[in-house]
C-alpha cells in the first residue's frame, strides 16, 4: 500500500519541480490531444449537424455505423493508422509514423464519431419549431446551421469533453503510431505503460496523478467557459 501514497507525493514533486521528462510527456499529450480535438470539432460538428438536421435515405444506417464506431478499440485504430503510415504503406512517404501528428490523426478517428453522434443527437433534440422560426425570419441554410449549433452548444460542449476524455486517456494509438519515443512522442499514458512494464509502479501512479491534474485543469477551464456562456 505504501507505493500508492509514495506515488501520490512523488507525482506532486514531479509536477512542482518541473521534472523535464514529466513535462516532455505532458507536452506530447497536450500537443497531440489539442491537434486531434481541433480536427475532431472542425470536421465533426458540421457532419453531426448534417446527420441530425436532415432527413435522407440511409440515415439510419449511417447513424448505426457512427454509433458502432463509438466503440472502436483504440489499438485497432492504432493498427490501421500504422498500416497506412508504415514505410511500405500507402502513406509511407509522409513521414507521419512515430510523430505527434500521426498520433493526432489516429486520435481524430477516435474523437470524430463521438462528436458526430453527440452533435447529431443534440440537433435532433432541439425544439422542432426552431427551423420553422428561423425560416420565417429569413435565415439561409448556413445561418440556420449556426443558429442550431449555437442552440445546442451545451450538448456539443459535453460532446467535446467526452471526446477529450477518451483522447487524452487512450494508450493504444499513442503506443503504436507514436512509438513511445522518449523526449518526442512519449505521452503520459504511454509513459505510465512503460513505467509499469519496468516495475516502477510508484512512477506510474505519479504520472497517473499528473494526468488527472491535466484533466482537472481542462475541466475547470471548460466549466469557466460554460459559466461565461450562460451569463
Amino acid at each position: 500500500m505504501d507505493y500508492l501514497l509514495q506515488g501520490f507525493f512523488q507525482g506532486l514533486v514531479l509536477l512542482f519541480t518541473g521534472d523535464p521528462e514529466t513535462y516532455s510527456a505532458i507536452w506530447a499529450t497536450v500537443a497531440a490531444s489539442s491537434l486531434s480535438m481541433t480536427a475532431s470539432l472542425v470536421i465533426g460538428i458540421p457532419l453531426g449537424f448534417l446527420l441530425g438536421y436532415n432527413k435522407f435515405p440511409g440515415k439510419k444506417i449511417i447513424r448505426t455505423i457512427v454509433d458502432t464506431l463509438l466503440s472502436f478499440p483504440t489499438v485497432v485504430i492504432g493498427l490501421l493508422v500504422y498500416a497506412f503510415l508504415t514505410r511500405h504503406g500507402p502513406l509511407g512517404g509522409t513521414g507521419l509514423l512515430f510523430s505527434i501528428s500521426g498520433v493526432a490523426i489516429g486520435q481524430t478517428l477516435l474523437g470524430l464519431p463521438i462528436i458526430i453522434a453527440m452533435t447529431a443527437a443534440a440537433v435532433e433534440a432541439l425544439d422542432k419549431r426552431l427551423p420553422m422560426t428561423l425560416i420565417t425570419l429569413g435565415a439561409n441554410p448556413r445561418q440556420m446551421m449556426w443558429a442550431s449549433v449555437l442552440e445546442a452548444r451545451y450538448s456539443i460542449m459535453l460532446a467535446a469533453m467526452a471526446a477529450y476524455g477518451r483522447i487524452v486517456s487512450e494508450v493504444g494509438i499513442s503506443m503504436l503510431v507514436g512509438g513511445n519515443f522518449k523526449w518526442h512522442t512519449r505521452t503520459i499514458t504511454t509513459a505510465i505503460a512503460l513505467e509499469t512494464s519496468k516495475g516502477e509502479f510508484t512512477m506510474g501512479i505519479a504520472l497517473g496523478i499528473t494526468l488527472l491534474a491535466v484533466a482537472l485543469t481542462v475541466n475547470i477551464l471548460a466549466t469557466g467557459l460554460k459559466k461565461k456562456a450562460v451569463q
Partner: protein
Amino acid sequence: MKRLITLSIALLVVLSMVLPASAGKTLMMATTTSTANTGLLDELIVPQYMKDTGVEIKFLAVGTGKALKMAENCDVDVVLVHAPGAEKAYMDKGVLIDRVELMYNDFVIIGPESDPAGVKGMNVAEALKVIAEKQAVFASRGDNSGTNKKELSLWKAAGMAVPEKAAWYIQTGQGMLPTINIANEKNGYTMTDRGTYIKYADTNGGNPPLKVLVEGDKVLFNQYSALAVNTKLCKDAQYDLAKQYISWMASPATQKAIGDFKLLGKKLFIPNAK
C-alpha cells in the same frame, strides 16, 4: 433477465470453486521477453516440464527489470533473466537466492543491409562511435530490460556518454520485436539478442530487412540464469517448486533439449549449466 443474472452468478461461483481444484500445482515465473518471443518456453520448456513433473508453469514475459521487481513484490516464485549485475543486486537485497547459470547466447548489432554508417565487421566500441559520429538512427529499448542495460553498458565501455535527447538516438520504451520494427521503419540500427533476431528472421521468411552487422565481440556475451524467490521475504513463494524447476533446467536432458532447440537451423541458446 433477473433469472439470467442469478444463473450466471451461480455459474461463476461454481466455476471459481472447481477450476483451482483441478488445476494442480502451478509455478509462477517471470522472465525476459527473449525466452518467450523465441518460443523456447511455449514450445519446449513448459510442455516438457509438465510432462516430467506434472507441474504447470505460468510465465510472464516482461523484461529483466520488471521480472526482478515482480520477484521483489512476491508476485512470482522463480525468475529466468539475463542481467548478472542486477541479479547480484537483488541477491544482496535478499530477494532472490540459488542463482544457477543455465544457458547463453550473444547480442548482435543489426541494421539495414545498405549499412548507412558503414559499421559492418567493426568491433562494438568502434561501431557505436561511428554511429554516434554520423548520427545514424539507433533504436534503444530504453525500458530497463536486460538488453537495455547491456546496451547502456556498451556505450560506457566505448568511452562515450549514453546518448540522451539526441534526435538520432530513439528510446522506444517497448519490447525487442517492436523496437526492431521501429529501427527498420527508421532505417536505423539496434542491438538485440541473437535468439530474438533469429526469430525475427524466421518470421520474415529467412530474409529480414535488418541484417547482423556487428557480432562476435566478447563483450556481447549474454548469460541467462534462474533464481528462486527467497521465502524469508515472500512467505507464500513456492520455494520447493522453484528449486525443483531450476535443477530440472540444469539437468543433462533439459540442457540437451535447449541445445537442440533451433530455428532456421540455428541454435537460439547454448546450454552451459555447470
